[in-house]
């Protein structure tokens, strides 16, 4: 039915508009930044990393935004996804008690990582989802601490503090090529660096991602689009409504015939599966999976993205994730040098010099990075307590005219 709506009405629908803008931005972003920076792919690489966080935020939004379950250990599922890929796509298991290297293809592990994370989500959810509110949050917090601790302390499996490196790159058959193949077109022409999935000792010609930011960027954009479509479908379905009903009033939801335990379990498992996705991608693009990447601060950062973007609203959550990523990885690190040069331009260059207790403006701003981050968060939450783009009354399946028709019919039926 949506397809029959006029363009104007579609644009009126703010969510659709945001999706449109995001999509266009995603398309022109690589060209623009390469043009501006004279062919550098540094920005694209940044964006490809940011995409991991977008996926995580979309997944956590299912748990926190839709079903209203506060999950403070979301990074654990991210870790599980990342380790699933890293273990089966590197030489790590060769030095484990298993004594056998696996080099599974990325695409298979993407799906497998999803299922493994979902499985752990269900495993954690099963005994804990009888808890409510704060109690559930504490248990998830504990789980979030256990997983990195396990990977620190099981070095024969996870490499422990030394992390897992040299992770296989994703690759596609050699004929898949195009503008997104970037510099690796050449790699393909030169030959081969991909293992035959059936006979893992032989190599076949292929198009390997080989750390090419453009290829990863295209991949993450496709993954995010897929995730948004799936989560949107869920949101507008029987299950999505059940989640929201549980969020609003669990007792009433149960009285309406919703099995609250399995419904919450599904929220946990589906939310976790997206971070499993994100984990496999992260392992591939970062080429290093270390317990340090999945600490409590990761869970909190994703939660901040969800809350700040607008809990429950998918497009808002995406914007929130991008905004926080930008602040954390671009704005804050460059703040110190920007402040320094600003001071010298406006004639306060003396501030830059170190003097007594004053470490100079550069050092001072650097020291205050996270104070500034906190201030930004507090400011946004004060100005927009519902998040940047809060969830709103859904556009309904019925068009405007249909609603008015119903309403006029209702006049007669209104008084029983």
């Amino acid at each position, binding site marked *: 039915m949506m397809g029959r709506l006029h363009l104007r009405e579609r644009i009126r629908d703010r969510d659709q508009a945001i999706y449109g803008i995001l999509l266009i931005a995603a398309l022109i972003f690589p060209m623009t930044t390469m043009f501006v920076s004279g062919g550098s792919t540094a920005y694209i690489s940044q964006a490809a990393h940011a995409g991991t966080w977008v996926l995580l935020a979309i997944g956590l939004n299912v748990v926190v935004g839709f079903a209203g379950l506060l999950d403070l250990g979301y990074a654990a599922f991210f870790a599980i996804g990342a380790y699933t890929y890293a273990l089966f796509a590197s030489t790590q298991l060769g030095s484990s008690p298993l004594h056998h290297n696996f080099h599974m293809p990325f695409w298979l592990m993407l799906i497998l990582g999803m299922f493994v994370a979902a499985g752990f989500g269900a495993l954690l959810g099963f005994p804990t989802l009888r808890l409510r509110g704060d109690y559930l949050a504490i248990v998830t917090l504990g789980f979030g601490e256990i997983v990195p601790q396990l990977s620190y302390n099981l070095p024969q499996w996870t490499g422990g503090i030394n992390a897992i490196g040299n992770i296989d790159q994703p690759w596609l058959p050699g004929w898949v090529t195009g503008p997104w193949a970037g510099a690796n077109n050449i790699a393909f022409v030169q030959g081969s660096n991909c293992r035959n999935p059936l006979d893992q000792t032989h190599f076949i010609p292929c198009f390997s991602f080989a750390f090419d930011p453009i290829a990863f960027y295209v991949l993450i954009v496709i993954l995010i689009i897929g995730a948004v479509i799936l989560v949107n479908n869920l949101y507008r379905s029987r299950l999505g409504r*059940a989640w929201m009903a549980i969020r609003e009033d669990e007792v009433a939801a149960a009285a309406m015939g919703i099995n609250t335990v399995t419904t919450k379990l599904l929220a946990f498992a589906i939310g976790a599966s997206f971070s499993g996705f994100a984990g496999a991608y992260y392992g591939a693009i970062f080429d290093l999976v270390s317990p340090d990447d999945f600490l409590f601060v990761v869970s909190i950062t994703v939660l901040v993205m969800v809350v700040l973007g607008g809990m429950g609203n998918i497009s808002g959550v995406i914007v929130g994730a991008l905004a926080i990523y930008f602040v954390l990885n671009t704005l804050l690190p460059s703040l110190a040098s920007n402040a320094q040069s600003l001071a010298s331009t406006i004639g306060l260059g003396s501030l830059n010099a170190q003097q007594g207790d004053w470490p100079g403006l550069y050092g001072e701003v650097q020291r205050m990075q996270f104070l500034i981050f906190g201030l930004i968060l507090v400011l946004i939450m004060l100005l927009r307590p519902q998040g940047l783009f809060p969830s709103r009354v859904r556009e309904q399946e019925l068009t405007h005219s249909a609603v008015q028709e119903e309403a006029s019919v*209702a006049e007669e039926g209104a008084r029983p």
Partner: protein
Amino acid sequence: MSDTDNILVLTNLTKRFGGLVAVDNVSLNIKRGEVFALIGPNGAGKTTLFNNVTGLFQPTTGHVIFDGREITGAKPHQVAKLGIARTFQNIRLFDYMTCLDNVRVGRHVRMHAKLWDSLFKSRRERREEERVTGEAMELLKFVGISKQAHQYARNLPYGQQRRLEIARALATDPKLLLLDEPAAGFTPQEKVELMQLVKKILTRGITVFLIEHDMKVVMGISERIVVLDHGEKIAEGSPDEVRKDARVIEAYLGKSA
């Protein structure tokens, strides 16, 4: 009386909370297609009895038999699926969902879409959604609030919230509808409308079991009444019989000097 005449049978139902006996050895049976009322002073255990029937509480002893099936100790969602729907004394709507969605949640238990259907919007799922949206609009019209379909439930005036709760309960296709003080806080006009609505619900073949304080409403629509006091059943019968019962008068007005 054969079992098929009774939609709900409670036998020796008791609910204890520690030392407090909230429902004390209550037996009653509700016939198909009647309006059965449960009355009693505040704290008599009426809502506790409802909660025992709908699975929110587990009875300490006794049995709940619905439609010829023992449902003692069943979970709330199982009870709803079998065909008992309810409203709440202190309205419990899904505040930040639209009225239409509130009713569609009620339809949940009669829907068949699996996770897979929902994820990929299968044709079956889309058809079901369309059908359910139509049915939900129909129910909103039935209770007279279809104009408010796209508003948040919390933004409705009080009377309409009560109606929405009834629509949501009806959406589960119940055989037995439990109404917990549906007329509380209503104006006389609204009470008349509510009574008409209950009669309309009866024509759908649904049995109504209600708790109500307002005697005019109770006497006006119910065929049989049970009176609870301190968790005990003290009277049962037609409105006229109950009105004249000495123990009922005592429970409500206190012992005469």
